[in-house]
């Protein structure tokens, strides 16, 4: 009995430790600058990883910090490393109980928990990242990361000498597959001979495995790497072996000062600030937001000095075309991995097809586990 009690105590401590809540400090100066009548936005964030992951969660936290610059936003709260699934409802509910009126849940696995808590708290506005379910007080938001991925593919296609490019990928889900395809289309638009080799790690975050996966691609002759992972291990692998690398999530060039070419990056601050502003004005309405480079939610990090001027110019032209809407990476004709026509000429894949993508374009070497 004693042991059981001790174990239960430990469990309780563990869950308490996991949520690791940050107590916001009230800056007095900011509060006094407020007009008395204005509604204060008290925002709360649920993060799937630690802020120190130097990747996905870090990029969200940068967005949160940017949002706090607005005068009407009170110091916000974030809770790190919240496990996905039903358990997260308890944590989200905790934020509601503490008086937060705008809550961002920043990973796919919080979808059902977010809707569940939202249905019982109609006066609170929720924003869920990367999901497909919304409600009266739940909006969704995500970025068209495939746009900068396509641009980074152009650079990879121009920079490779072995015509072999490696892609360290986390899980075979549409978001990742879409990125691989867009990248490959970018590569093949300038270098039809190049192939993109894919290795699945089946983890978002395991620096050791990511490093090993990157090394395995270098071992088979890849001289440019890119990744869809949360740790910057792929960058270090490329740096150690004098290859080139294209990062992801944030501008993490310091991990590979010589190898780094560019990175498709998130700019969550733009959507967080916009949402806070809409809630403040009372103009917020539920929507399923999927923004691209035009809205500045996704970007391509500044290109390194290693990229020749002609390539820089080409990328800039293509970027302008994507922003203007005259270029869409997934416009036909597109062939699938087997060389069969997948998208006819003149057809552009709609958002539904993009969000459910489960096939590889021509030029990808790898399999999608079914």
């Amino acid at each position: 009995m004693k042991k059981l009690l001790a174990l239960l105590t430990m469990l309780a401590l563990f869950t308490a430790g996991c949520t690791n809540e940050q107590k916001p400090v009230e800056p007095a100066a900011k509060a006094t600058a407020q007009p008395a009548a204005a509604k204060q936005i008290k925002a709360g964030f649920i993060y799937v990883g630690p802020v120190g992951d130097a990747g996905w969660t870090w990029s969200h936290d940068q967005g949160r910090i940017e949002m706090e610059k607005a005068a009407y936003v009170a110091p916000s709260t974030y809770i790190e490393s919240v496990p996905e699934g039903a358990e997260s409802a308890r944590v989200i509910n905790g934020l509601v109980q503490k008086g937060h009126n705008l809550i961002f849940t920043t990973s796919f696995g919080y979808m059902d928990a977010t809707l569940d808590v939202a249905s019982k708290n109609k006066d609170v506005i929720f924003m869920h990242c990367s999901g497909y379910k919304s409600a009266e007080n739940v909006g969704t938001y995500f970025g068209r990361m495939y746009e900068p991925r396509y641009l980074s593919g152009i650079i990879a296609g121009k920079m490779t000498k072995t015509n072999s490019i490696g892609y360290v990928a986390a899980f075979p889900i549409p978001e990742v597959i879409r990125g691989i395809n867009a990248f490959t289309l970018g590569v093949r638009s300038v270098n039809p001979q190049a192939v993109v080799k894919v290795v699945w790690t089946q983890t978002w975050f395991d620096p050791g495995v990511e490093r090993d996966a990157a090394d395995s691609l270098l071992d088979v002759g890849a001289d440019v790497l890119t990744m869809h992972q949360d740790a910057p291990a792929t960058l270090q692998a490329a740096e150690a072996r004098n290859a080139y690398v294209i990062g992801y999530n944030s501008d993490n060039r310091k991990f590979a000062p010589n190898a780094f070419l560019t990175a498709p990056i998130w700019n969550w601050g733009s959507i967080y600030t916009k949402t806070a502003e809409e809630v403040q004005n009372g103009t917020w309405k539920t929507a399923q937001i999927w923004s691209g480079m035009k809205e500045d939610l996704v970007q391509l990090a500044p290109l390194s000095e290693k990229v020749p001027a002609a390539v820089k110019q080409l990328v800039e032209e293509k970027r302008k075309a994507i922003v203007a809407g005259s270029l869409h990476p997934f416009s036909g004709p597109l062939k699938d991995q087997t060389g069969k026509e997948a998208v006819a000429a003149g057809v552009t894949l709609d958002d539904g097809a993009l969000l459910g993508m489960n096939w590889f374009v021509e030029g990808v070497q790898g399999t999608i586990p079914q």
Partner: protein
Amino acid sequence: MLEILLDATVRAGTPILFATLGAIINERAGIINLGIEGLMLIGALSGFAATFSSGSLLLGVVSAFVAAFIAGSIHALITVQLRGNQIVSGLALTMFGIGVTALFGRGVVGQTIDGFERHAVPLLSQLPVVGKAFFNQNGLIYFSFLLVAFIWFFFYHTRWGLNLRTIGENPAAADACGIAVNRYRFLAVACGSGLVGIGGAYLSLASTPMWIENMTAGRGWIAVALVIFASWSSVRALFGAYLFGGITAMQLRFQAMGTTVSAHVLQMLPYVFTIVVLVISTIRLQKGASQQPENLGLPYDREDRK
């Protein structure tokens, strides 16, 4: 190809090897330590922070050992001196490790250092197949070879090793022989924990020279399982760690080479392997052929005569 695979195997297996060796020393003294994951993190952070501020890799390894030694001493204090529950104390140590490294690691997230590099051993590194994998590696890997041999020698060819094994089997008998049971146990737990810390430092100084929260990603738990697979032997721990590292390395390389085998099948391999190992160890346990220390997990109290 085989050469590359072996090389990757050694590199992936080494952090688990250090952790398993540390855990074996704990358990040989009769103390279960489930704090391995936390100790690895403590070692990874202190090793990285020390190297980052001093520029010395050696200092990094030493601080990883010292920090994990100190953290392990907490476990030793609770389980040996105070005779507390070893399972609970170990789990608490893991949680403590995760939390404390997250807190103190903030300052060095995103910092970079020059990590361990390969140094070829003359002549030996020219050997076919095994040369590159075993003799063109970094200093920490060479150290792990020496450690495996040293621990084997210590357990079976020194009086202290014999005493330590006796304590794990029957502390009352050891006590009757005049062996300082608690002192041995305390030191075994603390030194074993220190080695676990070096396993963590391998990740932050050699494998991926950086600090990220939770960068061990569960390797500590693999080490806990490998202790049983290795049946408390340092030599078998080497094989276990390499087997585990090798399977991971292999499935990644099969994918990179573009095999048509489903990635799911390849990724299942480490887990299939774990289950097979558990089945084999359990059968051996039932046959009485297990090497498990008789008094593993039980606190010793001189007053409490059976």
